[in-house]
């Protein structure tokens, strides 16, 4: 039994009654990391001394009005593309191996206000480009359910650390499925908020029009609490949205009577494995029993999302990653004969193969003579994909389908074939292109590997997603199963 089998509100009660200390929670994290991280390899950097000292100081305040915050003392892991002042932030890239941020991301400031405790920084695919964590320059995180399979990516460390009980919860980022796909593979709850819900200030940019930071947790309730803490307009991010942040926990009623669910036929068609399809149909039966109704619909442009996504995200990445030039921070080559030579050698030695591939693709798509044919064309297709969602949401409250076409695959299985690897994200990518929110929650197992149910909502309607997810979770016990390590 792990302390982290308790929910945030249960732990909060125990702290409040002084039956548990913040030190206990922090020690639980580091003890578990000592036990299993040799196998799971989720963490890149630990912040032990600081976390332990902070815990001690917080324990003195337990039981006072000053310690009433719900997330007070809760141990969290942070994906290593979110900058943390004074705590090494690498994006799992050689080019940022020694980077020591001089400021905190807005989400970190918000977590400091909520007084969570940062345990350390989590592994990922380099610059969030990948679906398996095999693109990390430092280590390959494993899936806690089967150490021969990948945890998914790019937020593989975020999902694996939560699934294996190393932290209570974590933050990830999602550009094309990077929170939802690993959450599905590792059997945890991961939400990509509406674009603009959470500030991107201090998130090292991959594709700025698609990136969102989001919470990875064991339960839907905890997910709502963590999203609450990090949401909101931020003057430091001009793309953060000036919309009200509702009380997400109020949506956790368990009541889905009359809820209208759309099930896109494209999400259960070709390429989706039978057991995945079956788990979604079973989940729909559960929701139907609770009073929801579902109908098949069409998102006709779904099959074009993958191609549009790779053109757009790589184009944006090629511009965003131009800042890594060896001048102001990060790695610099040892043998440069001129400034241009320094740029080239620094970048070639510092970036991994997948990152270079995407920079190349993006530079090509934006280059003179190809811009209209590739980049602009993809932007127009993005409009069509967005319109598909708008049309369905005129009549339905949520869209439901699988998170991924298959359960977690074997390490090494897809690494040599970029297109097969990219196809993993075919069901999550349209959500980023449209900018709507989506969650993955556990909905079954196949040969001992978790399967994920994806619930997609209207713009800024994470509440209805949580309502649906919570009702399903309360009616099932998939989320209670834990990997044996």
């Amino acid at each position: 039994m792990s302390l982290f089998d308790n929910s945030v509100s249960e732990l909060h009660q125990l702290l409040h009654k002084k039956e548990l200390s913040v030190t206990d929670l922090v020690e639980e994290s580091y003890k578990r990391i000592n036990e299993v991280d040799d196998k799971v390899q989720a963490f890149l950097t630990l912040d032990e001394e600081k976390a332990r000292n902070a815990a001690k100081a917080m324990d003195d305040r337990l039981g006072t009005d000053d310690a009433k915050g719900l997330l007070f003392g809760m141990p969290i892991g942070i994906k290593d593309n979110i900058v943390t002042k004074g705590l090494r932030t690498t994006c799992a890239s050689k080019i940022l191996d020694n980077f020591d941020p001089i400021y905190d991301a807005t989400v970190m400031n918000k977590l400091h206000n909520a007084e969570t405790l940062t345990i350390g920084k989590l592994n990922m695919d380099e610059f969030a480009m990948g679906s398996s964590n095999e693109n990390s320059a430092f280590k390959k995180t494993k899936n806690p359910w089967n150490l021969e399979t990948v945890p998914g990516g790019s937020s593989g460390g975020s999902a694996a650390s939560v699934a294996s009980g190393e932290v209570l919860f974590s933050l990830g980022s999602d550009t094309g499925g990077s929170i939802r796909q690993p959450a599905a593979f590792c059997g945890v709850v991961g939400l990509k908020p509406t674009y603009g819900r959470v500030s991107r200030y201090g998130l090292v940019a991959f594709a700025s029009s698609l990136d969102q930071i989001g919470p990875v947790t064991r339960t839907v309730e905890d997910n709502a609490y963590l999203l609450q803490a990090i949401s909101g307009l931020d003057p430091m991010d001009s793309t953060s949205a000036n919309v009200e942040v509702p009380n997400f926990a109020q949506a956790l009623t368990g009541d889905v009577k009359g809820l209208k669910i759309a099930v896109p036929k494209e999400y259960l068609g070709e390429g989706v494995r039978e057991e995945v399809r079956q788990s979604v149909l079973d989940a729909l039966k559960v929701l139907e029993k609770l009073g929801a109704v579902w109908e098949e619909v069409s998102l006709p442009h779904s099959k074009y999302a993958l191609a549009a996504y790779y053109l757009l995200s790589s184009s944006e990445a090629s511009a965003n990653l131009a800042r890594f030039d060896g001048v102001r921070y990060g790695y610099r080559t040892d043998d440069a004969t001129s400034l241009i030579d320094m740029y080239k050698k620094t970048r070639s030695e510092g970036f991994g193969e997948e990152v270079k591939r995407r920079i190349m693709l993006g530079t090509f798509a934006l280059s003179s003579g190809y811009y209209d044919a590739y980049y602009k064309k993809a932007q127009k297709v993005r409009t069509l994909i967005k319109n598909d969602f708008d049309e369905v949401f005129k009549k339905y409250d949520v869209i439901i389908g699988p998170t991924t076409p298959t359960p977690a695959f074997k390490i090494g299985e897809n690494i040599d074939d970029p297109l097969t690897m990219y196809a993993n994200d075919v069901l999550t990518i349209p959500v980023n292109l449209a900018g709507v929110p989506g969650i993955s929650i556990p909905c079954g197992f196949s040969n001992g590997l978790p399967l994920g149910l994806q619930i997609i909502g209207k713009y800024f309607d994470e509440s209805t997603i949580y309502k649906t997810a919570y009702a399903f979770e309360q009616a099932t016990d998939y989320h209670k199963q834990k990997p044996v390590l």
Partner: protein
Amino acid sequence: MSRISADQVKHVANLARLAITEEEAEMFTKQLDSIISFAEQLNELDTENVEPTSHVLDMKNVMREDKPEKGLPQSEVLKNAPDHQDGQIKVPAIIE
């Protein structure tokens, strides 16, 4: 038909400020060719009267008050620089 040649790949690498070996040029030519071929399925769609989407939210220029604030201290700014001297970041000579 090949969509991209090895020479084009080298040109793109130069634009992206990446030094690539002959071997890498060959690999990227093959891989980019297959990705670009895959992307050409977008041409099946008639998008003549479709507006491009660069950003999903209906947002115009976001302005803030023009209020001077203190910048970062020099020591902080230089903390991560690979090479610096006399308070300035140092790079290889750019003028012969």
